[in-house]
């Protein structure tokens, strides 16, 4: 397989042809924060947290393939502040009540809030009115917590490739929804996968919340991304 050489913040990195910037960065021990990206599913570039500067232009690292000789800026003060701003936007855009959330401690959004030491979002809270859909047998969708990353839309499909989750409306009214027939036919494994693929606490498998005690959860003792950074 052919190898490409590129640079992240002046560090020489190697990439396989076809790898995206975030993938290649990971392999080179460089953490570029991601949120909507998920291994094994097609990148969507919804959250923009992985934005890097490529040859002076802002690009999403998760959707941009590495090219030979690419100059990537990652940890600049400007980019880090803009990323933090995106995290803060997500916190004010929805209703994120961490203290009551089943996913707390295992939530990627919250973990990014920790990593970026978000004391308080710079933006005023929007307090949207959002629905909790508890009509389904295996899962509950709490849209208050949804960040519309589309991981569930992209990653959870039926055997014949139909979307179980989809997007309704547009703009600030965009909401995730599930197909009632297809969601009713979900297996326990699929329901678990849906909950796992959701970076926040928007999709919950029934009867499994709060299983892991505080102190032992995914992000209790080490920041998100610390497993990548060398």
């Amino acid at each position, binding site marked *: 397989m052919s190898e490409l050489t590129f640079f992240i913040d002046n560090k020489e990195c190697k990439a396989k042809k076809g790898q995206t910037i975030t993938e290649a960065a990971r392999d080179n021990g460089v953490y570029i924060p991601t949120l909507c990206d998920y291994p094994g599913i097609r990148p969507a570039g919804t959250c923009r947290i992985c934005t890097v500067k490529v040859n002076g232009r802002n690009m999403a690292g998760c959707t941009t*393939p590495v090219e030979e000789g690419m100059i990537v800026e990652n940890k600049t003060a400007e980019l880090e502040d803009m990323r933090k701003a995106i995290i803060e936007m997500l916190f004010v855009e929805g209703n994120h009540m961490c203290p009551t959330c089943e996913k707390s401690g295992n939530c990627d959004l919250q973990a990014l809030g920790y990593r970026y030491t978000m004391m308080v979002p710079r933006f005023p809270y929007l307090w949207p009115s959002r629905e909790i859909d508890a009509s389904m047998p295996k899962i509950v969708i709490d849209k208050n917590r949804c960040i519309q990353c589309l991981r569930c839309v992209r990653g959870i499909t039926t055997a014949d490739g139909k979307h179980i989750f989809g997007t309704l409306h*547009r703009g600030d009214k965009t909401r995730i929804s599930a197909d009632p027939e*297809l969601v009713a036919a979900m297996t326990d494994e699929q329901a678990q996968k849906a909950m796992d693929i959701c970076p926040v606490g928007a999709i919950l498998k029934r009867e499994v919340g709060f299983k892991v005690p505080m102190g032992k959860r995914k992000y209790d003792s080490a920041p998100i991304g610390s497993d990548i950074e060398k």
Partner: protein
Amino acid sequence: MGNIAEVVSKAVESYQKDPTRLLDVIRDVQDALGQVSDEAIVQIGHLMNLSKVDVEGVVTFYHFFSKSPVGKYTVYLNNSAVAVMMGRGAIAKAFEKEVGCSFGSLSEDGKIGLYDTSCIGMNDQEPAAIINGVVFTNLTEKRVKELVTGMKAGRNVSDMVKDLGDGNNQSELVKSMVKNNIRQRGSVLFAPYESGSALRKAVAGTPEDVINEIKNAELRGRGGAGFPTGMKWDFCRRAQGERHYVVCNADEGEPGTFKDRVILTEIPEMLFEGMAVAGYAVGAAEGILYLRAEYMYLKKFLEKVLDDLRKKNILGKNAGGKTGFDFDVKIQMGAGAYICGEESALIQSAEGKRGEPRNRPPFPVQRGYGGYPTTVNNVETLCAVSRIMVEGGKWFASMGTVQSRGMKLLSVSGDCDKPGIYEVEWGITLEQLLKTVGGSGAQAVVIGGPSGTIVGKEAFGKKVCYQELGTGGSVIVISKKRNLLEIVHNFMEFFIEESCGWCVPCRAGNVIITNKLEKIMAGNGTKTDLAELESWCKIVKGMSRCGLGQTSPNPIATTIANFRSLYEEKLKKVEYETGFDLLKSVQESCKVANRKPKIEGH
């Protein structure tokens, strides 16, 4: 409910269950039933083998589809800034009074629905509305009364059109009261043109020759972004694919632009021929005209033009008399979404999906419609192509400025004596333009629409061209009597409404910066608020995925830059102000508890 099943199955069958025709299926159902209910959505899903949520996703994405009933008569009244300037408020009130319901709802008897809609491309004849696909312009309160009386009496909407507009608006297949208002003709678009002459020249040479000629002309895309057309075709031609496509972007949605509407009405032959030339250049056999839903009234007429061109062998097998070159054009209707003017969103929509832009790379020229290499070009660009074929690239490049060659159509509206279409040479100064259109003494000009730039007097000496003041064609003149910040606010509401919702900075950011603007407009802003507003605009611009979010803060950002005092005079001279009003915030609870709010200092 048998009716729903019947309508749905007929709609689905008439498009052979083709998922790329989902928008057409939904439109047929919407037209037949006045809504696309949950039941209809489920049935469409079953018959087309799509999940319900995907069908519902499309229904809820587009403005002209609705899950709830919108009435036998559906009034879509433009609420864009110029409509408001021209008296839209009084017209809306008149509608509400006559119909008896407010905008965004349906009359009690379910017969008439009143809805807002973004710019419908009639800025030179506002206030205007679309009722069941028929356009009514220059509305007055008296006219509204007549229209509502007619609707209540069950009259056919097209029968209520009284005077027809000029040119082809009078055609039997259009019969519209829309006016062309062509105020100034230039040598590229509105000069005499012999149908067939461009394609004849093109096919006499090789596709590479055609591309070279376009490169020699230094033609740049007329939609606004200004990408070199020859280069785009070259990329598309070279891209691997068993098929190639030409897509014409006739989804002009930038508030204030209406030039493509006039082209489509008056010189569609030139446009379709330009598509054929493009098809020859990139090696495509099929062209798609993606027509915005607001221009539905032109569809039959355009179909006839296509038929005539087929008869003349400008389209069809061996098009232009070139053996082996087959090229035809089909029309795909949009359904109300500004974002579909973005080329990859347009392709998604043409494929029957939600009009969300795609990630790039790959670019449409590499993988576009159906995954095949596709060139998406603007209506005006393709017309210019036809002229360049006839007159030559050198001739074209002799006009305009160094990086902006040729002529440009401007859609001029707002506070000027002669709103309408002007074909000008690139490089005209704003001052000259304002004089021509009768808009001297303007406070500001919005050039390039809300996503462009708002400039004041200091910039009137600047030239209209890519290097100085670029534009896709929208020019809005704003006189001194207008409250510029209100116009800015209208533009921001437009972007909030039209964001596709895919990426965070555009979806949430536009709401956040608009709230901040409102805070300042309400007199609750401080120096810190203004500084934050400026910096937040940069975040939205810098982090958004596509051109919409990358430009949506422009109304605010460019007015802070060019009209800073308008903001500064609104600021409170205090260090900190949240705008929190205790008295106001206890009103509701006191009312419920039946007590009088008692607050110290009030």
